């Protein structure tokens, strides 16, 4: 296995041109916090040296960085301007990596989806073409948003080298509250009672309520939550860490929010994002994963594996056919990983 560690975009372009002409199969690697299985890979392209800040003016509420930058470095950069890119993933993860993995944002109810925070992207195709899409403005409808295809593409279409991110002010106050008991029913009641939470997260033995904003609104909502059940302040890191670090395989179900109780019913361990529709379920073996996927499919959702073996799961045939044509255009030699 070759390890290629380009220091700049030109190096990525050279690598991909050479790989296409030699038919070298390349897997793009960021911080290794989210990877997909890829058989028969000849080389890994590490993006972590592409870590420069390209442009950052807090007044624009945009930040342009190279995609190999670690989230920890980005957090420190943005914190100086009292801002954040609201992605709650480990410090070691890279910006490009979490975009390529389209990670869930636990605080989605307040901060929205990751895919809506990427406003401009530069990527290098499988055959070494440098492509840019979007613009460094918070709003833009100029042309086709190719960056949206790369978001969640797991390195199958190209190497993300640079992105402009929509950032937001750090909340004035943030509190994470924890219940003494868990379960979907209690979580659902909390979601109904707390008007504008950042997150309501259910596990089998606790419910977390994340509140963010101005001091008065956080206090008011904490009061409302406490009227439902006794809640104590909790360590927010429990919220930010990827769930089930001990499990070898974790599936991330995505269903319509009201289907979450059915989705996690009967499982000893789960984490569900109320009002959003994500549920993380650890699976001890292939049979367990298949069972999770069958149930999620019957609920109209999908369940990619976000840790371990098992892949991203099936894609609707028509969407898959369109996707295959896009893949052929961006990676004509098929040297990047396949889904």
């Amino acid at each position, binding site marked *: 296995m070759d390890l290629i560690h380009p220091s700049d975009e030109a190096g990525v372009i050279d690598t991909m041109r050479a790989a296409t002409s030699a038919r070298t199969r390349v897997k793009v690697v960021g911080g290794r916090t989210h990877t997909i299985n890829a058989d028969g890979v000849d080389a890994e392209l590490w993006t972590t040296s592409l870590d420069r800040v390209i442009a950052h003016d807090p007044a624009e509420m945009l930040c342009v960085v190279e995609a190999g930058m670690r989230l920890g470095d980005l957090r420190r950069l943005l914190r100086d301007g009292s801002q954040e890119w609201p992605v709650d993933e480990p410090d070691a993860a890279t910006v490009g990596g979490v975009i390529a993995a389209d990670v869930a944002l636990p605080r989605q109810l307040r901060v929205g989806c990751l895919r809506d925070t990427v406003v401009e992207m530069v990527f290098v195709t499988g055959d070494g073409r440098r492509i840019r899409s979007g613009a460094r403005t918070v709003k833009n409808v100029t042309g086709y948003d190719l960056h949206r295809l790369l978001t969640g593409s797991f390195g199958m279409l190209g190497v993300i080298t640079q992105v402009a991110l929509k950032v937001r*002010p750090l909340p004035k106050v943030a509190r994470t509250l924890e219940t003494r008991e868990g379960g979907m029913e209690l979580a659902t009641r909390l979601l109904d009672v707390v008007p504008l939470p950042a997150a309501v997260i259910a596990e089998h033995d606790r419910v977390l309520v994340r509140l963010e904003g101005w001091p008065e609104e956080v206090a*008011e909502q904490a009061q409302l939550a406490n009227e439902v059940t006794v809640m104590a302040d909790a360590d927010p890191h429990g919220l930010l860490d990827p769930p089930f670090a001990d499990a070898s395989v974790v599936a991330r179900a995505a*269903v319509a929010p009201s289907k979450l109780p059915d989705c996690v019913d009967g499982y000893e361990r789960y984490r569900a994002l109320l009002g959003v529709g994500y549920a993380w379920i650890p699976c001890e073996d292939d049979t367990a994963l298949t069972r999770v996927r069958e149930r999620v499919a019957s609920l109209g959702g999908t369940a990619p594996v976000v840790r371990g073996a098992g892949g991203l799961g099936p894609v609707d045939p028509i969407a898959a056919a369109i996707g295959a*044509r896009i893949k052929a255009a961006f990676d004509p030699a098929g040297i990047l990983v396949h889904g």
Partner: protein
Amino acid sequence: MLGPGAVVDDPLERRLYARDASLVEGSAGLLVFPTSADEVAACMTVARDHGLPVVPRGSGTGLAGGATPLEDALVVVTTKMRRILDVRPQDRLAWVEPGVFNLDLATALAPTGFTYAPDPSSQQVSSIGGNVNTNAGGPHCLAYGVTSAHVLALDVVLPDGTRARIGSEGPAGAGYDLRGIVVGSEGTLGVVTAACVRLTPIAPAVRTMLLDFARVEDCAATVSSIVARGVVPAALEMMDRGIVRAVEAFAHAGYPTDAAAVLLVEVDGLEAAVAAQAREVETAAREHDVGTVRVAADDAERTLLWKGRKSAFGAIARIAPHYHLHDCVVPRTKLTDVLVGVYAIAKRHDLIVTNVFHAGDGNLHPLFSFDLSVPGTLDRVLAAADEVVRLCVDAGGALSGEHGIGLEKRDFMPLVFTAEDLDAQACVRAAFDPDGRMNPHKVLPSGARCGDFAAAALARAGALPEGTWI
């Protein structure tokens, strides 16, 4: 396949559908008015079998020529698909047909405590299908995001007549995010037959404020100061003196006609948060020599203040008989420079310009007013339009913030994208539409230009059709 009256070949009708709300006129072939996804699929199959170009059309309020048919294309009009299919507050989503008016959806949702957040100024008559295809914006997209952030899934009929669901009712779908490509694709990838939209909780409290300034620069600087204070208002709209005077004469909203510029600011959330944000907004404005800070005392006053903003384009006819409206977006910190540049361009070409725009987003809408009966006016208008686009691009902006590219801006695309960028976009388009029959000649420049649309159309144009929005 379709019901009686659903296929129209009448020359007068076809003439009516030969343009949208832009200045560009094309030529419509057959018009079809399907009432269901099955009927859309049947029409698309016929078009495939006969090799016909197809142009999807909603309410026709687009301002960039996206729904203007060329080469006698088959026009698939979705105005008869106007049902709200399913409202599911527990899932925070609703399924709607493409012809549903934006405001009708918001009104229907209100009793559930949720809303559909994007609110383009055309919302009384623009359709969800059209909003999806232009990735429409609106004043409240500053805090809530544009259409793309509010579309979970789409039912689409592809150019070959195949029906597909892209995206998912859940928070993520399987495979590439094709949903994200179709939203904003200006009818070039397929016909949307239903949209699954996200519902947003209606904020319990809202406060609307009107701030006036003696200097435009102070008004623009206040926008940045508000943001720097960590406040993201629900809306942050700026209007300059010219537009304020026209609006005030029209809407009688009590706008200060002696101010150089005004800011309409709206903050929302829980009552406690609204009070805190309003304080920050006022403090920011005081730092930049604000004149009066008017806070709407009740819903009636709030409605009146918004009436002023939303009727801006009805009011424009008072300035001169004709106008040409732009839609550019620049980095927020460049607002003052670009505004000063726009005034200089207008002066150089002896044109009247007024500005009303989504300041928080850096989304400008310079509006040139003129009288085409004065010889030489057209040339000056076109020269000014070209300069405005280049001014915004040079400031690091994009060609369009919310109206789209269509035909109007198509030939400017090489200003912001390389040939390779455009080629990659063309490849994605071809992945949906290998035969190139969907809304041909739109968005991407072809090797050969099909004439200068803007010039030809302006020469023909009278005033813009009644009811044009930004």
